[in-house]
């Protein structure tokens, strides 16, 4: 008897309040959208095999990369870890029976689905070609593609994100079990808490920005139109006020996963727990003050450039602190190379490169040359795909036995991790070079001397695609044929591992009491085979 077998029937899933079922619903939905976004990426790379715009017209190409960006950011990366792993495990990690607001949780999923349907509608209706950044006055005055429906889609999906974040903040503050002080929480919880603050405070600004764009398009009053006295830069200020924190919304939960996996697979507590916890919150706080580094060439004042560039240097520090701490966690640990650990190593290396290139871009002097080139594209794919997506896969593999009660096949999963790593590097490293050589982004055609690097990149993308398809196949396979996992196949600490796999609907038979520190492997050894609260 577990949360999956407890009740059957479609309605019991579609009307559930159980955070674990909602997590599974999210997992299925975001996987679907990931592959749609991935197919669009495939189209982009196919077009870029040749210097001419021969596979598709420029207008179509614009639509393809716009939808790729929108789907990957709003329908995949933003909800990826929080809505799946966060939803599933935050209540368990704090010893609660559910999130604070289960109905809001379900509503959040439905809003995600409505947003997704609106995106699909947009694609069917001919797409939108403004780029995911909707820069005005292009998006308000000069395109006649589906800006309105896309705006509505993102508006609705944004509320999905707000509700998830709101739920997490309330739950983490108010529903921790006895003994679970803030500094005994797993760092996964801290990271999601920080991301939730960003979700709650940042996303509404995106919402009002979309409303303003919609009003500008329909009524045409001119708040973003220079001919009527408005300012297009105002749009960018409001847009990036959300969209910069958005990147931290995306990466912080992934960093939370890495804290868990690095600790478990080196059998050592995370080095500098307090530093990592406070760094997560620091990233969230500083993340609000750096948005104009996306606007250095747009016409903001030099003084603003100075201030925002300086603050951007500061925001890199907490991320670096975390990388250092994870590295020191590895030092003198008993490292094993299970799949989640392979993905975690991938994260550490690739996120470091991506993050460092972010610092190059934060310096306004270099940014003026590198912005709007493939350097930017490479930078954000390194942090988001090499970083976040690898962390997501690490988390899925790490918690798969707990969620499903099954182990995935280890050899093929390790192979998939390696294939992904190789494919990723081949795809995106050449793009750094292309960027510094001057290839602009968002162009279907490019000078012929850039072709060889683009061909490498497309070849890498193909390998990367294989690397992403494999997990879907073997994970689904494992649901029926995978080895039965016990309660704690990794011998990890954390309350979620002290109960059965898959968990009960109410998570725990006896309300847990937290009497040890986080990542306390000595405590775990003393547990021996004594299982707290397992019922068959």
């Amino acid at each position: 008897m577990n949360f999956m077998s407890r009740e059957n029937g479609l309605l019991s899933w579609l009307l559930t309040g159980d955070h674990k079922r909602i997590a599974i619903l999210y997992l299925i939905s975001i996987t679907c959208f990931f592959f749609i976004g991935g197919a669009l990426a495939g189209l982009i790379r196919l077009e870029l095999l040749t210097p001419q715009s021969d596979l598709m017209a420029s207008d179509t190409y614009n639509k393809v990369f716009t939808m790729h960006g929108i789907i990957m950011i709003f329908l995949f990366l933003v909800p990826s870890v929080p809505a799946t792993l966060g939803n599933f495990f935050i209540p368990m990690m704090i010893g609660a029976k559910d999130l604070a607001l289960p109905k809001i949780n379900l509503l959040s999923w439905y809003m995600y689905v409505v947003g997704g349907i609106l995106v699909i509608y947009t694609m069917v209706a001919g797409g939108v070609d403004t780029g995911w950044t909707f820069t005005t006055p292009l998006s308000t005055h000069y395109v006649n593609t589906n800006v309105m429906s896309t705006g509505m889609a993102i508006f609705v999906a944004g509320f999905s994100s707000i509700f998830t974040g709101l739920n997490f903040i309330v739950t983490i503050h108010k529903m921790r079990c006895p003994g679970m002080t803030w500094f005994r929480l797993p760092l996964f919880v801290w990271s999601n808490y920080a991301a939730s603050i960003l979700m709650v405070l940042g996303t509404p600004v995106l919402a009002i920005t979309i409303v303003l764009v919609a009003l500008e398009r329909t009524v045409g009053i001119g708040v973003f139109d220079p001919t009527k006295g408005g300012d297009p830069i105002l749009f960018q200020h409001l847009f990036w006020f959300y969209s910069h924190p958005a990147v931290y919304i995306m990466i912080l939960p992934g960093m939370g996963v890495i804290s868990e996996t690095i600790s478990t697979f080196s059998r050592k507590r995370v080095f500098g727990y307090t530093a990592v916890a406070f760094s997560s919150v620091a990233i969230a706080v500083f993340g609000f003050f750096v948005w104009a580094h996306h606007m250095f060439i747009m016409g903001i004042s030099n003084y603003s450039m100075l201030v925002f560039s300086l603050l951007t240097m500061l925001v890199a520090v907490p991320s670096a602190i975390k990388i250092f701490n994870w590295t020191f966690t590895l030092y003198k640990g008993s490292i094993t190379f299970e799949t989640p650990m392979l993905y975690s190593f991938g994260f550490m290396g690739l996120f470091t490169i991506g993050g460092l290139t972010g610092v190059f871009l934060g310096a306004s002097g270099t940014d003026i040359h590198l912005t709007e080139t493939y350097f930017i594209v490479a930078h954000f794919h390194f942090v988001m795909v090499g970083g976040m997506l690898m962390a997501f896969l690490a988390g899925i593999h790490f918690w798969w036995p707990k969620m499903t009660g099954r182990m995935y096949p280890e050899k093929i999963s390790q192979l998939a991790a390696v294939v992904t790593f190789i494919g990723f590097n081949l795809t995106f490293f050449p793009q750094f070079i292309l960027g510094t050589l001057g290839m602009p982004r968002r162009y279907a055609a490019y000078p012929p001397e850039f072709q060889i690097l683009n061909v490498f990149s497309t070849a890498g993308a193909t390998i990367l695609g294989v690397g992403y398809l494999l997990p879907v196949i073997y994970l689904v396979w494992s649901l029926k044929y995978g080895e039965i996992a016990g309660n704690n196949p990794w011998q990890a600490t954390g309350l979620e591992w002290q109960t059965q796999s898959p968990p009960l609907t109410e998570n725990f038979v006896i309300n847990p009491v937290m009497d040890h520190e986080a990542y306390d492997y000595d405590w775990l050894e003393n547990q021996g085979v004594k299982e707290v609260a397992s019922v068959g």
Partner: protein
Amino acid sequence: MSDLKEMEEQENHIVSPMIYLAILGALLVGTGLTVWASFIDLGEWHIAPGLTVFWNPVVALAIACSKAILVVLFFMHVKYSTKLTKLTVTSGFFVFLALIGMTLTDYFSRAWGRW
């Protein structure tokens, strides 16, 4: 333990209607005051060339902020709420200020030209 007590106090604390009446009075007086002030030219303060503070909008915003603070503290019970609630309200206010403030610094500093 003190937090648990704080929480139960918050739930059980009942604000007296006399306080509500007093706040109502203060809010209405504030409204009248701000309307009256808008009909008078309150002058300006020239801090530096190109940097002037006009008192009318300052007074209007000050009165509005005071009214808002009264509503928040008494009608919304924040004065009798947990520390967490107070922290939440304050942090929301600060992020709001960051949005407006930092965006406005761009607009104001554009007039200063290049270095």
